[in-house]
Every structure is written in C-alpha cells, then in structure tokens.
C-alpha cells in the first residue's frame, strides 16, 4: 500500500522526473549491451546454456561470455553457431578444421556429451561443413547458475512480468535522498 500512496502523493513534475530516470536506466542498459556487442564482435555477447550437450563443462542455466577476436580458429575451441532457418544457436566444440589456401574455413563440431559429431542430426540437411558465416561467437568466459534466472523467466512469463513490474514501480517511487 505504501507504493500506491507514494504514486498518489506525487505531483506531475515528480512523476515525470522519475519516469525519465526509469527510461535512463533502460537506455543505459541497452547502450552497455550494444557496446559489448561492438567490442566482442558478437551480436549477443552473453548467452545462456539451454541443453546438456556440453556437460560436464556447461550445464543448463550457466552463462557464457562470447568474444570473436582475430586469432585463428583451433580445434578444441568452443564455438557458438547458428544455422539459417534455425532460431536457437548451438554451443559445441570444434573437432575438425580445414582452412584452404584462400582462407575459406570448413569446420565440424561436436558436443562433449554427444556420441557423434553434429553432421548427422544437428546440422541442416544441406550443411556438410560449418563455415565462418555460421559462427556467431567463441566462448571465452564462464559463469555458472546465473542464467537460471532467464530460463525461469522464459518458462514462466508471469514471473518476468512480475519482476519487470516490481522493478518499474520501485524505480518510479524511489525518492532521491
């Protein structure tokens, strides 16, 4: 009830200034995210692990930090790739790499927890080798568990709306001291 009273007790000026500060928070989060994208050269530099195909290295709900970098690919690298027509990017390990004289790269990946490589079952029918343009990131950093928050929010959208709502109200009603 406190919060409602707080909103009712606000005058227009106060409300406007709080809205601006809320927008400021949202905008700076967006700016930081986009900056990270530019620095790491990855469209989404932080991804959440959704499946167990890389266990025991990565478990569902772990967070991965991606960085493309200029250094050449190596077998053993963990890459994130996205195939045309498929929504969800896949995080797997490079097991075969061929680079021809013109610099064209052919790759094959495999999940640590899978028995065979991704060619049979995971790649699209028309993909025999994974190529440079399929790769959207290389895994460089790891933080366990934290991504569980996003997974819960995606599985139960109500939780997401509740969290966003509560945060918005708290920002709107917080008094500057």
């Amino acid at each position, binding site marked *: 009830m*406190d919060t409602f009273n707080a909103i009712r007790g606000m005058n227009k000026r106060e409300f406007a200034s709080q809205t601006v500060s809320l927008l400021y928070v949202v905008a700076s989060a967006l700016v930081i995210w986009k900056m990270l994208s530019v620095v790491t050269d990855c469209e989404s530099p932080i991804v959440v692990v959704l499946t167990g195909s890389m*266990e*025991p*290295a*990565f478990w569902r709900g772990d967070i991965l930090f991606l960085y493309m970098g200029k250094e*050449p690919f*190596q*077998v*053993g*690298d*963990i890459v994130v790739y996205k195939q045309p027509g498929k929504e969800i990017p896949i995080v797997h*390990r490079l*097991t*075969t*790499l*061929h*680079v*021809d*004289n013109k610099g064209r790269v*052919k790759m094959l990946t495999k999940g*640590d*927890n899978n028995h065979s490589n991704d060619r049979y079952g995971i790649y699209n029918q028309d993909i025999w080798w994974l190529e440079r343009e399929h790769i959207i990131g290389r*895994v*460089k*950093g*790891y*933080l*366990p568990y934290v991504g569980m928050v996003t997974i819960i929010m995606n599985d139960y959208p109500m939780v997401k709306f509740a969290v966003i709502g509560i945060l918005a109200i*708290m920002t709107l009603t917080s008094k500057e001291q």
Partner: protein
Amino acid sequence: MFSWKSRASTIGSYSTSVLGGLVIVLALSSYILTPPSSILDVTLTANSLVKLHQYRRVGGDGALFYFDLKTDLKPLFHWNLKMVYVYLSAEYKTQRNEINQVVLWDTIVEREELNHTRKEAKKHGQLRRRPIYHTKGVLDLEDLKCKYILLDDGFNLRNQNVTFKLNWNIVPNAGLMFDQIHPKTTSMVLPSTYIKARRDQDYSAEDEIN
C-alpha cells in the same frame, strides 16, 4: 529511511557486489595459478597406423591410429578449475588446405574425479555416460585406439606427414577459459599405399562398402 524495502535493497545490493567482487578475484587468480603447459611430463608416441582407406561417401581419406600416452594431469588443477578437456589432435598441410586439424581422441577429467578410487571413478563414468581413462588424474594408456578416424578433406593422406599434439582446454569454476598445447609433439609419415585394417576389431562395414 529504515523501511523493509530499503533494508532488503541494501542487503541485496551489498551481497551481490561482494559476491561479484569475489568472483572477479577468483577469475583473475586463474592467471597466476595456471602453470605453463610445459609443466606436464608427457610421453606421446604414435604406436601404429592400422588402416588407411578411401572413404568415398564422405569424400576423403581416413586413417586410424593407435597411441601410447602417459602423463599426470594433477599439476594443472587449482581451486578455479572445474574440468579439463584433454584432446589429441593431428595437424598436417595439403596442397589445397593450409591448415588441417582433426581431433583424434579426447577425454574429460573432472576435478571431483581426482580423489576417486578406481571403483568410484567407474561409477562416476557410468553416471556421466563416458569412459574414464585416468586414475587420480594419471593417464597411462598403452596401445590406445583413437576414438575418431583422421578424415581428410580430400584424398591426400598417402605420403602425408602428420604431426600429433596433446592439447587441453581448461574450464574454470567461474572466469576465463584457457587452451594449452604441450610443446612436445610427435609425427609420422603415412605410407604411400592404402592399407586394410591390420587388426580384426578395426574392420567396419563402411570399409567394405567403400
């Protein structure tokens, strides 16, 4: 001033920043604690080549090797190391391809397995659905059959000089991932003719079809 809200938010933000700081310290400590790859004493020899075939359906030559590999991985482990992915790679150069790298064999050594007895390790492997090759971090493998065939991108494996390397990828509890290559490598020149599987267990239906 002292409402439940401000208390909760203070506790929340304080504990998150302390935790975050600790995680950063943990991640940075990896830099100091990770030894150079030469700390491991590795014996790696290409024991034998048991077949060299044309795999026409996949469009390349294939070779199957046996290895002797001996090393103790324990020196790699420190407090911010969850597991190492150890892999044996083959590297060679062909006319068409400047770089060819293929993983021939790999295994995972988890930190918790280091204290396992042989029996516990086996049980742990069953749980994870993978074979355990080490006892307490020590790999002592004689006449080890490679898990994966060395499959070329084309038919260029005859007379090819192939270099074998032992590499590992370090997965931390939290922080940055590292790749390391052991400086000692071994190499082998493949024969000038194709050879059929020299051991019964290495025949496969695929060889016959091709």
